[in-house]
């Protein structure tokens, strides 16, 4: 037993099969598979577009050279061409530029609302799990009421009260997502609180706040991070839906959802108008879920022995 050995060599036979499976997960960690890699690359691209649309514009200076809101009625509703790789819309605005500039509000809504919902849901769920019976029950019944509404309806309600706009869309989606997070955090916190390692820490005489900070919170949040990633896609779609309904960023600012809504009226004249914002939404959401699932697989790989 004094010989250092890995679990894999310690049990090389029928347990070895499991160990080998675990090892193969480890090796996959070193060499990422192509699809998640592609998804990650695409997401980085979208992220750069959202953060520095100007940089993006200058990188592709040869392809388009006008801002997203430059109107040119003479060139309205053109198909893809040199100078307008994605074509132009009904006001002659460059669709490529609009798709690039539209990344920011879309990601802002997706990432921002997920982040806020995750934070609010974590506090909510931890309070419900650890804050005593009455507080816990009350917190979960409130969550039940919120969850009784379909999330898009909930978001619509909030926007109806607050009024349209990017910031309000973020708030609306945060409110619709937070109770779901709260529920999962509560269950996870209950599991961790009852776990033998928390029992061991209690038997060492550690004070409760220390157990909370050192054992409970990190072990609750690690799996939550992955769930949150998967949720970004949902939030992006919710954000696009709101702006499709005209409740997100207001015109003339580009946003994928509102671009889709406008394109709907001109489908006869130019079908490409709807394809590019639609593809942007689809590919972004898909890449986010692929990344989320990959993270999940890796996390579970680390967990399983």
């Amino acid at each position: 037993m004094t010989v250092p050995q890995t679990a894999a060599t310690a049990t090389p036979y029928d347990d070895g099969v499991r160990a080998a499976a675990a090892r193969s997960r480890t090796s996959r960690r070193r060499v990422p598979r192509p699809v998640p890699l592609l998804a990650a690359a695409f997401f980085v691209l979208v992220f750069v577009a959202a953060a520095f649309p100007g940089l993006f514009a200058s990188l592709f200076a040869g392809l388009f050279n006008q801002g997203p809101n430059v109107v040119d009625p003479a060139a309205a509703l053109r198909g893809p061409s040199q100078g307008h790789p994605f074509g132009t819309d009904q006001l002659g605005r460059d669709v490529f530029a609009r798709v690039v500039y539209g990344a920011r509000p879309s990601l802002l809504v997706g990432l921002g609302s997920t982040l806020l919902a995750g934070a609010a849901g974590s506090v909510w769920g931890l309070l419900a799990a650890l804050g005593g019976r009455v507080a816990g029950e009350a917190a979960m019944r409130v969550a039940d009421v919120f969850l009784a509404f379909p999330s898009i309806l909930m978001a619509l309600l909030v926007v109806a009260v607050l009024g349209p706009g990017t910031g309000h869309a973020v708030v609306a989606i945060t409110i619709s997502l937070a109770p779901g997070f709260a529920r999962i955090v509560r269950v996870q916190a209950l599991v961790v609180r009852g776990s033998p390692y928390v029992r061991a820490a209690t038997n060492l005489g550690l004070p409760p706040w220390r157990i909370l900070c050192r054992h409970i919170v990190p072990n609750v949040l690690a799996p939550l991070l992955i769930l949150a990633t998967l949720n970004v896609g949902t939030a992006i779609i919710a954000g696009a839906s709101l702006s499709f309904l005209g409740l997100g960023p207001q015109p003339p600012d580009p946003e994928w959802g509102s671009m889709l809504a406008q394109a709907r009226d001109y489908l006869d004249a130019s079908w490409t108008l709807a394809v590019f914002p639609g593809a942007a939404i689809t590919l972004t959401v898909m890449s986010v879920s692929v990344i989320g699932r990959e993270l999940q697989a890796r996390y579970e790989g680390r967990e399983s022995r």
Partner: protein
Amino acid sequence: MTGAAPAEPLLAVERLSVDFTTRQGVVRAVRDVSLSLRAGECLAVVGESGSGKSVTARALLGLAGRTADVRAEILSFEGRDLRRLSPGQWRKLRGRRAGYVLQDALTSLDPLRRVGDEVAEPLEVHGLASRDTLDEQVIELLAEAGVPDADVRYLQYPHELSGGLRQRALIASAIAARPSLLVADEPTTALDVTVQAQVLDLLKGMKDAGTAVLLISHDLAVVARLADHIAILYGGMVVERGPAAALLAAPAHPYAVDLLAAVPSLDGPVTEPPALRSAPPAETGCPYAPRCSLADDRCAAELPTPVPYGPDRMVRCWRPVTDETGRRPRPAPPAQPAPARGRAVVTVRGVTKRFRSPDASWRTAVDDVSFDLMAGEALGLVGESGSGKSTTARIVLAEFEPDAGSVLLDGQAWSGLRERDRRARRSRVQLIDQDPLSSFDPRFTVERVIAEALPGRSRGDAARRGGRDRVVELLGEVGLDAGLLGRRPGQLSGGQRQRVAIARALAPNPEVIVCDEPVSALDVTVQAQILALLARLRREVGVSLLFISHDLGVVRQVCDRVAVMKDGAVVEIGEIDTVFRSPRAAYTRALLAAVPRIDAGPAAGKLASAMDLKGPT
């Protein structure tokens, strides 16, 4: 053994190999295994986890899986060549001609189906029963498997049955189609001794009725009770094979000798557990060479060939053990310093704890229990599952408040305090439990796990505050080296994990360590090492142990005194030798009688003589 055993073996296996192809290459799980089994006989395949015993059983039933490459020169059952069976033919064989009993009866039984339906399934699938007589047949089978009130039980769901009854129901379903072969993979491992005795009885009855039994087990004592022949597996190979009585009386392979020596015994002198080296099976040469005390250069370089060893025996070893080289009597352990009686560390007085059952009635888990744990003493707590052992432990750990009675620690109040007042003293009572892995924060390294338990300021950032030295020192005390500091518990072997758990329990310099089944999940050789470690620490550190186990042999190895619990109450307490030699309570006698033991006597048939027990209640 019945006299009607035919000359032709029912199951014949020659040079069976099972390889698993993984991304990391080929894992050779079973290598060159040859076995044969006749009707009415029991062959036991014994080995530690990872030895390939379960893979062997699964391969014989066509269940090795898609990633397995099964090869054999001969693989025949009832005269049929199993190597050529199609999946459909395998299905017809399983359940119809060969029954399979798994270890964990709760997960093997479908929770959503009634027990009777489960037992009826093989009858229906193989078309052995008509609709009208099905129920009758099922009830008959359950009764035959020793399920009392079978006509009621067959309508119940698995969760409504106890562990022993579930195992019997599983056996009933395995024998429903009257197979000629029953493969039992660790059929009694999760069971209490008394229930274990009953299940072994049942298997013995079936063997006597002419069924061939292939028993897979890690427990030589269980095997001794039932087996006619024993094959000992190590590193996927049969290292020794022979008639049970002869093999147990005079094992020839060094591994068989070590394995037998590691079994804690109920009779005979308490001996120092053998100091076994621990290493994975070798890839070249003899797989046991890295752990073998007799190994030489040849053993490391060259795989031994199987050689005959006495009548009907085989050993795969270059240097088989003889009386001169090996089977020396083991030395008695250094005398325990007589514990300074007089100062009780933990005083338990009239403690009672009740829990609310799901049906709103109250169940008394611990009933008016009193005992003292003296300084430096090891007190054993034995009893079947549900007897209140663990609840008592949790009351001593102050995880539960007793409903009545009190617990004192060093003469001061321990139960009935506010948690805030108790917290400072909590580190004086520590716990080692059955599953160390789940008691470690999965994100923590070995270093952080132990450092967290260090007293005072060095908690947490061990490296910065010089606590690392103490962590390394503690690892050394439990026989681990500093190379493990950065490992995560999931990367350690079972024995290493338990050692880390012991190091953590020692870190705050406690006066009492509560050991709740600390070795029951370990292989017998690893178990012997951990028990030796606990005994040594008790001598050197002087810590008191409250040692809970269902295994009486283990308790005897470690403890000075023992308390026997039944239905929440202590039925007998006293010096361990007194209690085990001349038990006063009827329950203690029943418990002792149910323990399987290895008599090194000449006739294996006589081993079953202690099997007249029909349950404790």
